[in-house]
């Protein structure tokens, strides 16, 4: 054995560990997408808490980089579902929210946790399922009727089960029918986002409720078809809410306002309204900023 001290190979191992550690110092800084043209804001980091539908449909992949480029903010997008996003807002752990559960949002605003709740866009929920349609909901004229048929047929139904805006809508429909699906053998709760839930429904050939944007974006990979749509109760409305800086002084309220202004500006609205046309042949969202909510259909 070599009398050199320490052994050559041992030193090589130490060099490897050291170089890995040093490389962390250079690559551990975030790859900044802030452009050099707009002035870099005083507090560039902005935490956006949003739904999984805006991420799984791919909208955020276009909207956020455009916003970052235009304003110089570095957005930390945390797509967790409306329920968790609202909780993060209540705890001051996010600066701005992009959510779609009007009843929960109202409770949030009533609690004084948010300022400036602005209408952004809307699309529609769909009730999707296997093309064989064992519960025969294809003939249902309303969402309530469809759910009643699913319960009556004890057909597999996959729920989000994660406190999201989609789940809020789903539970409202069950409630309207005075049905309690929880605990029943045919009712599955995935606890995951919209994309994952659609996959489960597809694999189990069951029914689920989804927003049309995520369904269209993922449709080619799924064995599900849209069975019930167009019911006015299936309207899916998105709002942007800035977290109240009076309750949480550490919140980046300037950045939150910049984001809210951007998504409701004509640039942002054009982007949202045009999203999906090139890739899927149809718009996935309808841009609504400034409109009267009661006029939406």
């Amino acid at each position, binding site marked *: 054995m070599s009398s050199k001290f320490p052994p050559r190979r041992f030193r*090589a191992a130490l060099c490897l560990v050291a170089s890995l550690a040093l490389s962390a110092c250079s690559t551990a800084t975030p790859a900044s997408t802030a452009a050099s043209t707009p002035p870099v804001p005083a507090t560039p980091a902005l935490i956006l808490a949003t739904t999984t539908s805006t991420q799984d449909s791919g909208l955020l992949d276009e909207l956020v980089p455009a916003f970052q480029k235009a304003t110089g903010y570095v957005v930390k997008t945390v797509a967790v579902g409306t329920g968790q996003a609202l909780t993060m807002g209540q705890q001051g752990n996010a600066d701005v929210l992009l959510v779609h559960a009007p009843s929960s949002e109202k409770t949030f605003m009533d609690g004084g946790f948010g300022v400036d709740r602005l209408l952004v866009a809307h699309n529609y929920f769909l009730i999707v399922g296997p093309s064989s349609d064992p519960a025969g909901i294809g003939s249902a004229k309303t969402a309530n009727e469809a759910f009643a048929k699913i319960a009556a047929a004890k057909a597999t139904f996959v729920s989000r089960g994660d406190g999201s805006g989609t789940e809020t809508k789903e539970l409202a429909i069950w409630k309207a029918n005075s049905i309690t699906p929880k605990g029943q053998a045919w009712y599955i709760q995935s606890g995951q986002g919209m994309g994952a839930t659609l996959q489960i429904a597809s694999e189990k050939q069951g029914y689920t409720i989804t927003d049309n944007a995520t369904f269209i974006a993922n449709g080619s990979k799924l064995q599900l078809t849209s069975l019930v749509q167009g019911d006015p109760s299936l309207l899916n409305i998105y709002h942007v809410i800035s977290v109240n800086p009076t309750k949480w002084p550490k919140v980046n309220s300037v950045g939150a306002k910049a984001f809210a202004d951007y998504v409701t500006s004509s640039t942002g609205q054009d982007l949202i309204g045009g999203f999906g046309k090139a890739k899927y042949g149809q718009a996935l969202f309808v841009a609504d900023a400034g409109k009267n909510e009661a006029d939406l259909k």
Partner: protein
Amino acid sequence: MDDLVQITLLSLSVSGLATAISLLIGLPLGTMLALSVFRTRGLVLSVVNTGMALPPVVAGLVIALMLWRSGPLGGLNLIYTPTAIVVAEAVIATPVVLGLSAAGIGQLDPRLQVQLQGLGASRYQTVWWLWREARLSLLAALMAGFGSVISEVGAAMMVGGNISGQTRVLTTAIVLDVSRGDFGTAIELGGILLALAFMVNGVLTWAQQSGRRG
């Protein structure tokens, strides 16, 4: 869409730094634990070994609770940064390196330490020679520590947020691709991760086996 090279380098550097930290903390403490004799030693060893079974997502949750703005360390603004992932992964890897180092040193013939001291070795020289003697186990401890963090996803997701271009590492990117149904990309990323781990462990194993020829 995501820059594959950037994600791979970020994974490597974050896990590499976390492993280095765990080595700096775990190896000396593990050696002390193996060589000292004190009454609660058995209890301490049990706690350390339980730490090896600590679920990464729980470690991530605890650190997130501290780093969130609503938490005690919120003012540091570390949430959703690569630094937060390094901290969480160091917490996960340290018990592994500590416990396995203690086992590796504890396994040495106790007469070796006596002999070294009899030959006039200082405390540091004794420790160095003991480390040389136990290098098979110590390098295994290092590989185990690295393995435990390069492949974990729960903590990286919780404290990092899987943000594109900032905190998306190989494991969290795989989870995202799976949830979107991009299984092909997910498997590719998995392949890259395994190749990475193979390369790092290849070098460490080569270093470990150097003594075997003699």
